[in-house]
């Protein structure tokens, strides 16, 4: 009798646990399904491609090889990756230098103006990316708006070479991803308790010291998140180097695209993608680690 009660109780608990698990699965299901279908499976395919040979007309020949990884050591691709890292890092740094004061200012605005300022920051995203990039071509090209204005004003004799160089590529990257820097910075600065700054001032620190010892360390997670948000898409970008760089400079995104679409070398394209992914994962982990410490 007693044992049977226990048994019923136990089964009730396990039933409850089971239904709880079922409920959890039900809620998680769509998200998990999405992740599996659009992240795990494609990523698995990409990873699996890296150890096979190139099909002559694109596609894969299923013969195992490490050759694709060996090719990563080629100075040509190493230089392209390093060059992309450099351009993305410069763009991130400039975005940070421009974005931090902007975010700081917005955080000090009255509430109504804050909203307006944030909308203005986000507004460019409502226009197609390609159109925005092409607008730079219209602005900066030889007979473009900037040059013709300068010529008309008599400030220059012949059009400046504003387009098709690495500086323009960096400008394009900063322009495109600056909002992604400002928003997390704004969120971090906004959260900051103004009393901490007052306390710092009361203790005798000047504005510079207060900034570097109080404000900046406390908003560091925002700085890191923003930097990552700018760095990641900059690193893999291929449209900006193509349109604003005039095809004269190439980034790792261009090489990957060319491997898939021109060279029909899917395995090596996949290997480069994986290499890029590893770099980015390391950065993400570093960011996660530092924001947990902060």
């Amino acid at each position, binding site marked *: 009798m007693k044992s049977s009660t226990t048994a019923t109780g136990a089964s009730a608990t396990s039933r409850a646990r089971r239904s709880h698990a079922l409920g959890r699965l039900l809620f998680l299901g769509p998200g998990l399904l999405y992740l599996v279908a659009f992240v795990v499976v494609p990523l698995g395919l990409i990873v699996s491609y890296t150890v096979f040979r190139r099909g002559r007309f694109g596609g894969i020949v299923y013969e195992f090889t490490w050759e694709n990884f060996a090719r990563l050591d080629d100075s040509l691709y190493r230089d392209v990756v390093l060059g992309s890292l450099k351009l993305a890092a410069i763009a991130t740094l400039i975005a940070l230098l421009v974005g931090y004061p902007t975010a700081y200012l917005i955080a000090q605005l009255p509430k109504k103006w804050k909203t307006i300022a944030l909308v203005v920051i986000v507004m460019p995203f409502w226009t197609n990316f390609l159109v925005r990039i092409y607008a730079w071509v219209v602005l900066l090209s030889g007979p473009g708006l900037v040059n013709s204005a300068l010529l008309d004003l008599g400030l220059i004799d012949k059009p400046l070479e504003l387009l098709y160089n690495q500086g323009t590529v960096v400008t394009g990257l900063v322009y495109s991803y600056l909002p992604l820097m400002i928003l997390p910075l704004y969120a971090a600065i906004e959260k900051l308790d103004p009393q901490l700054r007052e306390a710092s001032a009361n203790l005798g620190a000047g504005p510079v010291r207060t900034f570097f010892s109080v404000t900046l360390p406390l908003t560091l997670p925002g700085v890191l998140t923003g930097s990552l948000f700018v760095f990641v898409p900059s690193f893999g970008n291929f449209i900006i180097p193509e349109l604003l760089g005039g095809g004269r400079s*190439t980034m790792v995104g261009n090489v990957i695209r060319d491997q898939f679409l021109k060279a029909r070398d899917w395995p090596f394209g996949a290997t480069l993608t994986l290499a890029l992914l590893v770099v980015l994962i390391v950065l993400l982990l570093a960011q996660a680690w530092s924001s947990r410490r902060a």
Partner: protein
Amino acid sequence: MSRTRFTRRLPAAALAAGLALAVSACGGEAADTAAPAAGASSARLDPNADLSKQSVAISVWADYTPKDLPERVKEKLKTNLKVTLHDTNEAIMAKLTSGADTGLDVAFVSGQYAQALNEAGLLEPLHPELIPNLANLYPEAKELAFDKGNVFSVPYTWGTTGICYRTDLVKTPPTSWNDILSPPADAVKKVTMMTTERWLALPAIKALGMSVNTRSDDDLAKVKEKLLAAKPNLLGYDDTTFGDKLKSGEAVMVEAWDGWCPTSEKNIKFVVPKEGSDLWVDTMVVLKSSKNKEAAHAFINYILDPEIHRWAAENILYKVPNKAAMDAMDAKLKAANAPLQMSPSDLLKGESIVDLGEDSVKFTRLATEVAAQQ
């Protein structure tokens, strides 16, 4: 002319197809043992097949055929036409060689890719008896290096690559590829070259007197050196907007496909450099996997109809290898666009670009090396 013949033939064709079906049902073996059509290695096609029972699925570049082609095909051939688009040869090649059933009957690809598809055993040898309009083609159209005699491909458009330039902005008209590679002082930083690998290499290859189909590492090392030396004087590499750059004056000299050079502008001219150039051909091929081969052939035959084929010449300003169509095209348009007046024999002086197989990666690497160099 051929169009009316086709329309009139249709009811008879339907009747004949019905009869053939009845005959083959009675004595299938007799039909099977009949000799296959000359030149056709695969199954015999029925010249009288009922096309209304078939459909045609094609893959083609955007804006490369008339927008109302499906309606026209439906009207003339009584068959449904489904058009899918591809951006590049590489994209359609990946699709066709993936091994999956694409459901496509006809694909538009450039000559060297048709050759590669044929080598991969993916193409149906053409059944010329089903394409009477082949007679409309110039004799030169049967002399193409990648497919002599049109065994597996029918040329749709052809042309060459040269220098497109502003007559008012360059002092001496360009005559040589070296004018692009080391431009005169007034053209420095106002020159573009193409980025697609084979054409990126073309000016240097021709200036060095090599074959466009060279696979030699020594040759390509020299080509690379020449391309890198040219890079500082270029405005950029451009495959798509060089015509606009020329019109705006941002560029004064560009490497261009003949059909893309805006020669209808008063101050813009196209020239084939003295060192020679290439001959590119875009073709139509029938896929071996096609289940509607009769309709596929009828479709190609219909495209070769001067009425349809001249559409390409008049609307995309590419030369078509169809004498009847070129003769029928708008004379004013032809007069206004000099490249359209180039004769087939002049065109054939250009060197056909052929598929390089495994060695094609050498050109990809070359293009990456040139682009990556700062």
